[in-house]
């Protein structure tokens, strides 16, 4: 699974050097280039009028400056998001323009690794059966260019504005989106299309993100991680939406869903509004936090996969987390035994698992892993490293496949 940062969150476009440097210093190696950042909100609404700006030369200059900076910092850019229209757009005449922009994005997607390009479906002025008809034509045209350039086009879930109230729009229904992608890929005879799940759009429409991710399955190639309050558009850092009632975005459901699909795509961190809330003097301190959140998601989503990749595992810790592991994963990934530093537990059994001294780990075959099953991750990892253990993993029970009290 890859982790990247959305370029929209870098804020200062005229001087991207510092932001990119901070991002790289925090450990991000990849960026999603969101081309909407070059446009002011609502630019497309003015297209064709005198006030439409910026002009192509100016755009080109900004873009090239950006690319130079990324190249200087060796930032990878395998994921691009095409500019898109507002959800409440009044312009129903811009489909040809959107097609042209999409084709240009594909043409300029660069060389090297296979690129993914998020291109939102068309929705302005469309209803009923014509939505798919028009989009099919649109994506087939884009698909031709994508095949030539070895680009994978990702569709994205949209909102629809009912006089300002954002509700589920085009591709918000996972079964419909899946059917579109399958039909398009079938038409091209290979995987040219996939999906990017925008968690912000899901939250605005009160959607169960886990079920959506699970229904999309292998088609899901990227997840745009952003928090909003479920009413207003925002791109805040996940986990910052806590209030006195709890977390307003159901990250548990998303993590569960992505585990179920064994998601192996790209996690995109979109935290521009969180970052923008801070003084520029404080922003550089936020990048490591954003990176840590991204890594936390990756760790949680991959937990089962990580445990499952070893031929055998041993649990370190014979307390509640161990019991918990045995309840939810003991059958699928049975450990050989458990270890604990508490000598009083040696020789006892926890959930049928023998508890032994950590000393026995010295004889553990090198391809096996020790899974830390207590909250003292750092201390235990240090102890295991000192003992020469190579494969050290961590288990966590914050996001279990199901709640506690249903036995």
């Amino acid at each position, binding site marked *: 699974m890859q982790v990247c940062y959305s370029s929209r969150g870098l804020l200062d476009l005229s001087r991207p050097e510092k932001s990119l440097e901070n991002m790289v210093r925090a450990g991000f190696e990849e960026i999603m280039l969101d081309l909407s950042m070059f446009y002011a909100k609502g630019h497309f609404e003015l297209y064709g009028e005198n006030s439409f700006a910026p002009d192509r030369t100016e755009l080109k200059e900004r873009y090239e400056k950006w690319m130079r900076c990324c190249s200087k910092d060796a930032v990878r850019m395998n994921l691009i998001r095409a500019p898109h229209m507002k959800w409440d757009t009044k312009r129903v005449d811009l489909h040809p323009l959107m097609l042209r922009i999409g084709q240009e994005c594909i043409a300029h997607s660069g060389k090297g690794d296979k690129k993914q390009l998020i291109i939102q479906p068309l929705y302005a002025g469309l209803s009923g059966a014509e939505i798919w008809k028009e989009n099919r034509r649109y994506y087939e045209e884009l698909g031709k260019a994508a095949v030539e350039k070895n680009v994978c086009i990702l569709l994205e879930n949209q909102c629809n504005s009912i006089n300002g*109230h954002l509700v589920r729009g085009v591709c918000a229904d996972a079964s419909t989106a899946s059917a579109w992608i399958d039909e398009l890929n079938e038409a091209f005879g290979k995987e040219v299309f996939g999906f990017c799940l925008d968690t912000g759009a899901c*939250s605005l*429409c*009160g*959607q169960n993100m886990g079920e959506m991710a699970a229904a999309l399955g292998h088609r899901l190639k990227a997840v745009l991680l952003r928090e909003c309050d*479920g009413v207003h558009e925002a791109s805040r850092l996940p986990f910052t939406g806590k209030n006195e009632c709890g977390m307003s*975005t159901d990250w548990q*459901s998303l993590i569960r869903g992505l585990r179920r699909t064994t998601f192996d795509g790209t996690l995109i961190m979109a935290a521009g509004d969180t970052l923008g809330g801070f003084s520029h003097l404080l922003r550089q301190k936020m990048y490591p936090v954003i990176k840590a959140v991204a890594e936390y998601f990756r760790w949680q989503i991959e937990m089962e996969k990580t445990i499952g990749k070893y031929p055998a595992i041993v649990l370190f810790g014979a307390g509640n987390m161990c019991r918990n592991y045995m309840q939810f994963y003991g059958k699928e990934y049975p450990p050989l035994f458990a270890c604990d530093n508490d000598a009083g537990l040696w020789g006892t059994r926890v959930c049928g698992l023998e508890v032994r001294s950590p000393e026995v780990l010295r004889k553990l075959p090198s391809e096996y892993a020790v899974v830390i099953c207590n909250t003292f991750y750092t201390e235990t990892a240090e102890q295991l490293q000192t003992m020469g253990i190579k494969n050290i993993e961590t288990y966590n029970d914050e996001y279990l496949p*199901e709640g506690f009290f249903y036995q």
Partner: protein
Amino acid sequence: MFRIGVQTQNVINDRYPEEGFAVLARAGFSYADFSLNAYLDNGSIYQSNINSFFDQTVSDLENFFTPHKSAAKNAGIRIGQMHMPYPIFIPGGDQEINDYLWHEVAVKSLRICAFLECPYIVVHGFKLAGYLGTEEREWERTEAFLHFIAPQAKELGITICMENLYDSVGGHLVEGSGCDARKAAERIDRFNEAYRAQVLGFCFDTGHANLVGLDFEDFIVTLGHRLKVLHIHDNDGIGDLHQIPYTFSRARENKASTDWEGFLRGLGRIHYDKVLSFETAPVLTAFPERMRADVLGFIARLGEYFSGRIYDFS
């Protein structure tokens, strides 16, 4: 014209039901959505504080509701649908209470429904997806309950209607059970085929749908003939307010922020021919009591307007 109904809650007084049904009839309603859920408040159920109403025998309950039945008849109002108390299962609750909810409350609700000659009873699915991990496993629990009451419903000639619900995540209302129209349609068909009867149908709740941003038209069209009853009400997309349609707007243009056009178009497209029932009891406590009859009259007029628009779309 469509038949138009409204909730009995906040209108019908148990001591003088004649008066309430007469008010409804004068306002222009010919159908009522009997609020059986008002006799066992959901907040109390969640707190495991169950009152003794359903301790009564079926015969006692029938006696209790006999005045309501005759009052409705005398006013020319048919009880077209009713709401079973909810929840019918408390997650993590006492086994004894959950057994009581199934064996006493649900069973007796069906008997009351039959006694009032009401063809549809609306039930809430279980809100367990968060605990059980998946919607599918949540449905298994709801399905077990439906199988428990379906034979009795079949025998009594009642159709149980599942409703699209919301759930709360940190105070943010998000989709709950029954929000996937395709799954609902498939499940209803499977159920009815197994029982060889129309034991299961759907109740589309416009307010809940608005809270979780459902596409009204697509949802209704997907359900098609399985849609048996409606809960028509409006909100701001944030809270479950049960207000009059067209009440809310979000933009400076001040146009309705709920997709009423999609709703009416959807009903027209499936040739819906059942009751247009408003679940707007809270409106009656929001307005001054002296305006109650006027407000009810306005809701009924709105039903007439809806009626005409649905025919236009048919």
